[in-house]
């Protein structure tokens, strides 16, 4: 279980994120600049909250009152960056192996082969990230993230830089991967369709403040009302099934 209750003063607002994720896929839903990515960065240890607590499966990752602030290296948090953040000077295999530096070389090679197979990267092993398509880059980033054996995975707008056709192809694929992961997953998104298709629970965030976490059904009803009021097409709210 991931428990987050943090505050951090930012330039335009104070981030007040409070929610928990227990085995399910949770969406952190909100408009651009609402504080979604910074929340993920606080969980991963890339940014430091001013105060609060972050716990993961009984381990305290951050607790301001006890002066605990685990390094990102020790948190076991997998992070899929928006632009994937693949190491440009390393090959596909080099990137994947970077996620498991602590393993013995023979284990690393075996695990890399397994991940290459699982993420359909065969034939791309020796290529540099800059020569790959957006979808291939995303699969490398996913393989690298899983190589580090995270306990929770954070996906920061994973489809934001992909065109609509590729996105349509990748959504079911990534949904499968997340469902097979078994641990906690947080998907940051400002896209209602993505959230309804991929997530079980939704935590909305606006101006840095999170609301009560709701089920996707509740979220769907709320969105339907908002869309109806705005005179938008509500067909989408009848089609989604998880």
């Amino acid at each position, binding site marked *: 279980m991931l428990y987050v209750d943090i505050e951090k003063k930012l330039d335009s607002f104070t981030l007040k994120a409070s929610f928990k994720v227990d085995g399910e896929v949770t969406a952190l839903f909100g408009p651009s600049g609402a504080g979604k990515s910074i929340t993920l960065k606080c969980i991963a240890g890339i940014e430091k909250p001013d105060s609060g607590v972050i716990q993961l499966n009984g381990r305290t990752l951050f607790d301001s009152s006890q002066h605990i602030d685990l390094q*990102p290296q020790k948190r076991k948090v997998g992070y899929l960056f928006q632009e994937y953040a693949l190491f440009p*000077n390393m090959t596909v295999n080099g990137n994947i192996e970077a996620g498991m530096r602590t393993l013995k070389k023979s284990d690393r090679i075996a695990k890399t082969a397994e991940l290459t197979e699982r993420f359909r990267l065969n034939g791309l092993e020796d290529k540099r990230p800059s020569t790959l398509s957006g979808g291939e880059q995303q699969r490398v980033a996913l393989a690298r993230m899983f190589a580090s054996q995270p306990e929770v995975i954070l996906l920061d707008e994973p489809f934001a830089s992909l065109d609509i056709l590729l996105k349509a192809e990748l959504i079911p694929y990534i949904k499968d991967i997340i469902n097979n992961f078994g641990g906690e997953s947080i998907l940051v998104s400002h896209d209602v369709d993505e959230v309804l298709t991929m997530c079980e629970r939704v935590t909305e965030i606006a101006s840095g403040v999170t609301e009560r976490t709701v089920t996707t059904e509740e979220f769907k009803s709320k969105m339907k009302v908002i869309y109806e009021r705005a005179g938008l097409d509500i067909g989408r709210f009848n089609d989604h099934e998880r």
Partner: protein
Amino acid sequence: MDLFPLFNSLRIAAISAVIVFFVGIAAAYYIAKTPRVIKGILDVIFTLPLVLPPTVVGYLLLLLLGPKRPVGEFFLEKLNVRLTMQWWSAVFAVSVVVLPLMYRTARGAFERFDENLASAGRTLGLSNSYIFWRIRLPYCRQGIIAGAVLSFARALGEYGATSMIAGYTPGKTATVSTAVYQLWRTGNDELAIKWVLINIAISAVVLLCVNLLERTDRRRG
């Protein structure tokens, strides 16, 4: 033609370039992480030799390293080593004058680095030193190499501070730049022009290397 000045200039420039390579990179990396006010102050200190007349740098170094000054006196009395008027004394002068070039070029290269790569590395469990040597430096490689080559070129031509701290002794401390001055002063134009041409040729080749590196860097985006 005695080629000692060329040999001496090359070794002084090479040693100084190696020193400022490491000091400049470390300064650029660590200063970028300091709070804004301290960063501003350190940035001025590390850039100052770029705008100060080299003679001022030489004078300040003499105040520190001269045989009757604190550091110079200590080395002379305790270790019987005179820090000035040796061929290697020029390394102090050249390193200080050239350091801003390496520091600012490395800083520029580091500023273009995508910090998400370092963050990704940390979430993957990579150590900070691994991230620095295997991800950050390779990413900034072209800019850093260009800085090192530029530093070497500038080191090769340093005159003001070098002449004050190492002087001009033929066969001992003479460099290309101090030799040119001495040859002109003594009316030996024929030899002076030879050294001038050698200096221009070396500098042109070095600058050509810098341009090539920068072009590769831009292409890489």
